[in-house]
């Protein structure tokens, strides 16, 4: 890539900038002050943009990634506290303000959270920040005590020299006057006391257990209106007209306005807005709407898969190898559209602020893009937008918006009702489930060949689906030579040594907006690769674990390490009750390596997952308990989808599902027991928010195939098995 492009252009120009991707963003310096609300006590000591030490001894870590449960607040604070030798009970975390120069992702150039990158991109940076702060405190103490800096010890938030000691806070002011060391030395891993400590408490648990944690939905402003928007029932439909008389007659409804995405009803409170929307009449222009059913789309995608597409990876001669194979296996797979359904439905609060600006409260994941979009929609500069990044009730990819759909909607609603009063935009669960930006529906064609000795000699994989990069700022980065990395990741680089391989994709277009969904391409490619290899090994008469190891040990030793570990934990070869079977799957994603073994039985035609053994190698384990929690969460979230979820378009393209009664979520009694082992490693740390998910579906599918003799190639299971 890439042209450097000024960010302060209109959204159109920004999105339309052919071939260019934003790698540098110029922002007015005064935005840097956004972290503290007006009236916050000035912070005396700011060695850099990532950590503050207050006179009250409180160490505040500014976290450049949004916290929605995956743990960056605790994770990044751990890195700072380690090098600072802070007292953990005095450590706090808050979101860094919007400033891509300080907080931008090194790859994307914008401030964003995604790709399980928070720890990976912060490990050195945040430790350096902590070490710099420590160096400044030590320098200040050395000056005051007239002592050599090298003789001053730092322990648990205290500076110590001989019989003198003082807390960080007592030197916070003085330290601010010291120069920040440019390249402070970092600890050797053997000296870590917070990094790798499984008992370090998370910073946000208490507030999240008592109802005190503030989410966007919890923001109230004087005179605030609540807006709910009537969206179309079909993707691509536009408002043709509306009759607001009945809605306006509902007590508490203040206004009804058309905006880009539909018709907004404004109420003095939530219930009024919801009641108003119920009786609002809207007619839709469906001339450009998606009118195919999801069934039809699946048929179309599979038809496209008959031909090889743009090649993502090729080696050897797969056609010749298939022709010469002693045994072949062909399989078609279809994966449905999936909604993310984060627990907090999407929302935003926007209020007029001093000097013609606005203040926004938003669970913002694509911070820079949201910021720019809101400024454009309000017709003001980014410097006039104060963006408060809120804790968010989950995301799973939904908030990582390349086009800022709901931030834009909030800003448009705010402007439509005058731009002079606070507005809270609230989506209901129905808006969320029916709101698009789904994990794309994909079709896959697999062909494998074995030679007479049962060796896998050919592997052809055609992936078909929409790209969520199409028409977004990420297009030129993510789609190259007709190959979408987000579609083929996990397929193009299989961990198995096979001599003849061809992996290709067809990028389809359609009106249904699609988006990355926790673990992105691996949600389907991991399933395909891991079930197909399992079938091929079975055909070759090989054990699923031994067979994998034989093909993987050289090519992907770290993944093989997790496979050995998980098989050992599960006691893979031990006999099970007759009605239970084990399935295994190993997937490398986002730089981390995970194997899961699932113990499954069938009950009423559906799989019951009793236990999952999970081994993960994510390099140095910064927060072992968060890693375990993310493995558990990835397993539960993945199981929900693979067992139950499918977002369907019916005849004529109408969206079929609407809420948790027909888009089911896993419940407590369906959650398996989970054992997690973390492989000891001194490799650089990698993320865990997504990598826990991809193996669970194929691990369960492989167990189910043992129990029923039937492969499941069209999840969800419950539909596939009852259809």
């Amino acid at each position, binding site marked *: 890539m890439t042209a450097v492009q000024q960010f302060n252009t209109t959204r159109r120009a920004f999105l339309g900038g052919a071939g260019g991707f934003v790698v540098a963003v110029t922002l007015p310096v005064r935005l840097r002050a956004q972290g503290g609300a007006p009236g916050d006590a000035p912070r005396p000591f700011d060695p850099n943009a990532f950590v503050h030490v207050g006179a009250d001894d409180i160490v505040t870590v500014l976290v450049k990634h949004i916290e*929605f*449960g*995956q*743990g960056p607040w605790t994770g990044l604070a751990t890195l700072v506290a380690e090098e600072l030798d802070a007292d953990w009970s005095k450590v706090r975390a808050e979101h860094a303000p919007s400033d891509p120069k300080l907080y931008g992702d090194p790859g994307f150039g914008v401030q964003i959270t995604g790709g399980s990158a928070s720890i990976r991109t912060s490990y050195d940076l945040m430790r350096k920040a902590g070490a710099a702060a420590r160096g400044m405190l030590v320098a200040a103490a050395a000056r005051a005590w007239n002592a050599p800096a090298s003789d001053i010890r730092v322990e648990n938030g205290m500076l110590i020299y001989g019989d003198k000691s003082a807390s960080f806070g007592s030197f916070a002011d003085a330290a601010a006057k010291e120069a920040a060391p440019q390249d402070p030395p970092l600890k050797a891993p053997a000296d870590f006391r917070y990094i790798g400590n499984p008992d370090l*408490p*998370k910073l*946000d*648990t*208490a*507030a*999240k*257990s*008592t*109802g*005190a*944690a*503030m*989410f966007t*939905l*919890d923001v*109230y402003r004087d005179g605030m209106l*609540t807006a709910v928007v009537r969206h179309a029932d079909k993707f691509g439909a536009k408002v043709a007209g509306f009759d607001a008389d009945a809605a306006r007659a509902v*007590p508490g409804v203040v206004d009804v306005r058309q905006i880009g995405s539909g018709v907004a009803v404004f109420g003095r*409170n*939530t*219930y009024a807005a*919801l009641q108003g929307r119920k009786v609002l009449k809207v007619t839709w222009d469906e001339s450009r709407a998606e009118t195919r059913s999801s069934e039809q789309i699946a048929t179309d995608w599979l038809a496209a898969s008959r031909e090889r597409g743009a090649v993502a990876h090729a080696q050897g001669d797969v056609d010749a190898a298939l022709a010469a194979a002693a045994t072949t296996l062909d399989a078609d797979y279809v994966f449905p559209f999936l909604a993310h*359904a*984060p*627990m*907090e*439905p999407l929302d935003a609060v926007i209020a007029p602020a001093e000097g013609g600006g606005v203040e926004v409260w938003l669970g913002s994941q694509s911070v820079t893009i949201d910021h720019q979009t809101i400024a454009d929609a309000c017709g003001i500069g980014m410097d006039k937008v104060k963006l408060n990044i809120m*804790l*968010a*009730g*989950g995301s*799973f990819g939904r908030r990582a918006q390349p086009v800022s759909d709901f931030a834009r909607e909030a800003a448009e609603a705010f402007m439509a009702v005058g731009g002079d009063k606070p507005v809270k935009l*609230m989506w*209901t*669960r129905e808006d969320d489930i029916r709101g698009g930006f789904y994990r794309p529906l994909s079709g896959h064609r697999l062909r494998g060949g074995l030679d007479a000795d049962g060796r896998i000699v050919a592997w052809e994989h055609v992936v078909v689906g929409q790209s969520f990069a199409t028409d977004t700022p990420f297009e030129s980065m993510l789609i190259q030579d007709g190959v979408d990395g987000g579609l083929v990741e996990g397929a193009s680089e299989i961990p198995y040594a096979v001599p003849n391989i061809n992996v290709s994709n067809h990028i389809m277009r359609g009106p249904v907006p699609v988006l990355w969904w926790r673990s992105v391409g691996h949600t389907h490619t991991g399933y395909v690769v891991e079930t197909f290899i399992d079938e091929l090994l079975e055909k070759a008469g090989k054990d699923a674990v031994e067979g994998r190891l034989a093909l993987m040990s050289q090519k992907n030793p770290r993944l093989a390490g997790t496979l050995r570990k998980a098989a050992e934990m599960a006691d893979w070869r031990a006999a099970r009750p007759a009605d239970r079977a084990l399935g295994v799957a190993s997937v490398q994603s986002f730089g981390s390596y995970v194997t899961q073994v699932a113990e499954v039985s069938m009950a009423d035609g559906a799989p019951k997952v009793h236990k999952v053994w999970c081994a993960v190698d994510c390099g140095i384990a910064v927060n072992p*308990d968060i890693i375990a*929690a993310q493995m*558990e*969460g990835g*397993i*539960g*979230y993945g*199981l*929900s989808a693979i067992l139950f979820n499918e977002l369907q378009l019916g005849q004529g393209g109408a969206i079929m599902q609407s*809420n*948790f*009664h027909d888009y089911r*979520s*896993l*419940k*407590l*009694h369906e*959650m398996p*027991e*989970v054992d997690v082992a973390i492989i000891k490693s001194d490799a650089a740390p990698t993320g865990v928010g997504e990598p826990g998910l991809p193996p669970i579906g194929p691990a369960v599918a492989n167990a189910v195939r043992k129990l029923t003799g039937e492969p499941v190639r069209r999840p969800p299971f419950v539909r596939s098995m009852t259809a």
Partner: protein
Amino acid sequence: MAISLKVNGETRSVDAAADTPLLWVLRDELRLTGSKFGCGIAQCGACTVHVDGQARRSCVTPVGSLEGREVTTIEGLKGDVADAVHAAWAKHDAPQCGYCQSGQVMTAVALLERTPKPAPADIDAAFAGNICRCATYVRIRKAVADASDTIGG
């Protein structure tokens, strides 16, 4: 219309139609924002409160039906069972995003108040109406068991 209801031990008067779901009265009128909105149709449990000690979904409970009843929200939780549950939640670092957790805690406290020694099936049944999209279920189960041990001891 003015409706009087007792929330967290205090009598409060609110101006709302009788069919207004309790959830919106708690949040919009009383600014008790610990109870969350997740589905609006009694499918997720994010809005769970106690009415006379029983777990109830406030999103489908008309405020007009609560005259003379005691409503407790997460903000008003207190007592040994609540303390034990909070301690267990902290020990297991149960929350991830945290958005469902008020509802999970309210469900746990209601269960343990009634059944201090729940069998696994009692826990399954009590939590059948609480969704956690982050799937913190492993920890919720352990925390409930731990809290039960503490209040028993």
